[in-house]
Each structure stands twice: as C-alpha cells, then as structure tokens.
C-alpha cells in the first residue's frame, strides 16, 4: 500500500505524473517479483523517468513502435513474466487493438496503462485524447478495465491486475492535480466503490479524474460514489443497496459509451438513473471545458 503523505505529494502531479512513482512502490513492495515495463518513447509522460533510472534491468524502451511493443509484451508475458505496457491511450489501445486482441486470444496476462484517456489532453487535439478506448478494450474477451481516481487507486488497480488473468487496462484520465478530498473521509462500501457522503438524496457515480472535477464543482450538493474497476465486474449487492437509497443516481463517464451507466443500469435500481457522457462526435481542440461544451458533456447543468 502507499501512505497518505506520499499520496498527497503525488496528487499534485495528476494521475499520469504519479503513475511511475506508484509503480516504483508497487515493485519495491514485491507485488510483482518478475516483471518488465515496456514503453514506446513515452516513459517521462507517465512519470517513469525515475523508475527507468532506478530499475534499468526491468525497463524495455521499444521506441515509437507501439504495435511491436505490444507484440514484444505479448511474447514476454507468454513466458510467465508480468508485463506492464504503456503509452498514450489512443496509441497503445487504438493503434494496437489487433495486437491486444491477439494477446488475449493467446491468453497472455498483460497489464496496459494508457494515459491521456478521456478529454484531459483535448487541447492537444483528438490525436491525443480518447473517448473510444474503453469500448475498444471491452469488445475483446477476457479483459478488465480500471479507471483509478487517486494514486492509492492506481496502486489498487495494479494489485488487482496482478491477481487477474487476461488483459488488464489501467485507464489514466485527466491532466491536473487530484482533488485532495478524494484521499480521505470516504466509506469503502465495497472492494470497488468509495462513498463520499454530503447527506444528499442524489448521488453522482464516476471514476478517474472526473471524480476530481465533479467534487470540485459539486462538493456539498451531492453524494459521490467513485468506482475503480469499470468492466468485468461481479454483481455488487452493497453498491446496489447503497444506490437504491438515493432518489436519483447520476452516472458520469469520459467515454462515448458510458461504462458507469452500464454498471449501474445492470443493477436494476428502483432509483432514477441519469446518463451523462460526451456526444459521439469530433470537434475543434481546446481545453476540457471548451471540448466538454462542444460535446454537450455538461458537468453542471443536467
């Protein structure tokens, strides 16, 4: 596990910036005894610069060759070595979809971390953000998607990934400091769900960096449930009971296909359920607020 002091320090860097430091602790804690980290010339973008210097023997830099990097990762993982493969989400998922599909077909155990997912990097253009990645991964059998919201949740996603077979995708969204109120004062209602109580009769359900944005905007007005794993879930009866205690459940996801809504909808709640996700289209680039407005992804008035 990681301590609160460390987490608070890392939270300034955002999820992708903190990833390398969290992975470093994960390896130091012997959570993975035999592993390789593979990137495609993007290690510094995921805060892996220090990791690379500290564990050069674990690090394989494949260069700007995502598809081959995914194939190399598959080859290594099929020799019973844990592999963590990562780059910008649209490249490592979008460009490598077939390689990921074939890795799954061969029953490889592979953990993929994709940063720049969602709209966090939308100011760089649609080349560098992805709203399709969850659907792409989920279309492949034997896959699990995590969308952590804090460094601790990144750690938990890594730990859960190492326990699960198949392809695990750790989706890192956002590109700014993580809201500190996400790091304490919650109720862990199930293995996958954290509840933040503000005594509202409406609850927002979300994941990833969106949790920081929503808590910033609606701190005292709503309760929040933040999920970490967003696909391949077992039926969560505690989550169902908790959500049924609210009048309205509002599901947010930075993805064309709202995976949070899918999870909640599958629970057959009595409560009213609302789906808030970006409209399926492209628009001119801009910051999160600009692009969200263009895509009718309204976090305030719904």
């Amino acid at each position: 596990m990681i301590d609160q002091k460390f987490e608070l320090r890392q939270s300034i860097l955002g999820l992708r910036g903190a990833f390398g430091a969290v992975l470093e602790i994960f390896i130091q804690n012997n959570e993975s005894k035999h592993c390789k980290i593979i990137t495609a010339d993007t290690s510094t973008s995921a805060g892996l610069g220090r990791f690379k210097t500290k564990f050069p023997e674990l690090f394989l830099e494949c260069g700007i060759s995502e598809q081959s990097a995914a194939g190399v990762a598959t080859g290594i993982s099929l020799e019973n070595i844990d592999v963590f493969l990562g780059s910008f989400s649209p490249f490592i998922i979008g460009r490598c979809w077939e390689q990921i599909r074939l890795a799954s077909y061969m029953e490889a155990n592979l953990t993929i971390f994709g940063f720049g997912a969602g709209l966090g990097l939308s100011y760089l253009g649609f080349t560098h953000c992805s709203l399709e990645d969850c659907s792409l991964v989920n279309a492949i059998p034997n896959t699990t998607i995590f969308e952590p919201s804090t460094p601790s949740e990144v750690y938990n996603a890594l730990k859960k990934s190492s326990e699960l077979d198949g392809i695990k995708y750790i989706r890192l969204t956002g590109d700014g400091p993580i809201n500190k109120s996400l790091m304490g004062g919650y109720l862990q209602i199930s293995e996958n769900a954290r509840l933040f109580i503000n005594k509202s009769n409406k609850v927002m359900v979300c994941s990833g960096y969106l949790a920081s944005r929503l808590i910033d905007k609606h701190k005292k007005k709503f309760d929040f449930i933040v999920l970490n794993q967003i696909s391949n879930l077992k039926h969560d009866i505690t989550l169902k009971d908790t959500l049924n205690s609210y009048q309205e459940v509002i599901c947010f996801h930075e993805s064309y296909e709202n995976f949070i809504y899918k999870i909640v909808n599958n629970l057959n709640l009595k409560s009213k359920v609302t789906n808030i996700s970006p409209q399926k289209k492209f628009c001119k680039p801009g910051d999160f607020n600009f692009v969200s407005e263009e895509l009718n992804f309204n976090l305030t008035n719904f």
Partner: protein
Amino acid sequence: MNKNEQNKFSNLVNKIRQRILSTGISSQYKAVHYGGALSMVEIIAFIYLFFLRLNISDSKNESRDRFVLSKGHACLSQYSTLLELNLIQENDLEFEINGSSFAGHPVINRKKFIDFSTGSLGNGLAYAIGSAISNPNRRVACVIGDGELAEGSVWESLRITSKFNLTNLLIFIDLNGFQQTGETKEINGDMDLNKIFEGYGFNTIQIDGNNLKSFHDLKSKFVDTKPNVVLAKTTKGFGFEGIENTLDSHHTFVKPDTKIYFHD
C-alpha cells in the same frame, strides 16, 4: 554438416513435402496454402534439425527453445515437420478439424510445440523478440514471408531486434517472390534487402533456399556479435508438379497423385 547430417536433412525435407501433400488433401476444405508451405520446407527442416534444441520430453519445459511461424498460412510445413520429428503424434495432427490447434493458421499449444498463434501477418517477429528477451539462453527462430515485409510492424520489430542485439534470435526471410494477388516485386516494389538488413545492423546471409547445399555450411556463417538474418531465395510451391512457381499455388487444390520432386 557432415555426411550423416546431410542425409538426415535431405530425408527430412523429402518426408515433409510428402506429409504436406497427405495432410493437405485430407482437409475437408480442399483448398490449402500449399505455395508458401512448400517454399520454406528446407528452411524449416534446417531450423528444427540444426538450430533449435527440442525433443518430445521438452513439451512442458517453459524455458525451451521457440519457433515462430510469422507467415502463419504456411503452417502445413510446421505441422509436417513436428510430425516427422515425432514432436507430435499422427493423431495430434487434426488439420482444420473443429477444436484442433492445427488449424489453417497455427493456434498456440505449447505442449504440441505450437508456440504462438500466428496468421495475422507482421506480428510474429515481435513475439519472437519477447521470447528471446525473456531468456537469453533460449534460441528462437522466426520465419517471415517476403510479402509480409510490407507490414510496418515487421520493420519496427527488426529495429528492436537490432537495438537489443538479440543474437539468440535467428530470422529467415522466405523470398518466394509471390503473395496472394501477384508477384511481390510488383506489389511491394523491388528493393535491395541485403543493403537494408545490413543497414539495420544484421549479419545478413543470402542463400538459395531450396538448394540443400546452401544449408550445409550455413551455421558457420552465423555470428554471435549481432543478430543473424538469412535471406532465402525460394520458389513458391517448390517440389509439387503443376503448381511450382505459380501465383495459384498460394491457396489451391492439388490431386492426391501430385508428383513431388524429391532431393537425392
């Protein structure tokens, strides 16, 4: 290769061609990828006899050597080799039968020495790199087709092979000159592969890939200071009368009494 090894080599090559015919005609789908399987018979026989160190007791050995048939459509050459070397048994080779690993393209089954699922061209070399990196004491061989060289991922992987100086990985390029819809030089363009591979940092060896004599001293040309690639000029459909050196041989029917050219 000494005389005894040369005889063993030519016997295996002949048996593989015979087995390709008997297995191919057993397919319920009748049309089979004969051309690319036949062009690489000498190559695969060399790899299994003189490069890889495999025997049946190794089937569950996780650190054993690996073979990657990147041009997966040529799988009949691999299945026939495994059978003729007794690495699999006759009843294992259920070619294109429901539920079998011995499909029209290889499906991973490590206990039966099918080390990776291939068939989607351009992916095999990356798997081979993964295997080679994960255990430097392991030997890995990979066969790539000349048509397949158009895949960008092959060139990504060649660069990675060179970067990590994987001397335990042996690559053969089967230059049979044809692909599905025409001559490779027409579709891909004609290029000086020798210069390109040299430029990538490989020890590049050119051979006549269907001539047994080309293989007799091949091992002596390998180096242990950089990765080795063998550019093997072959003939598509080699050894089968009627389909040799034809575009049609890529995926075709043959008669059970097809005349096979055997090496002396």
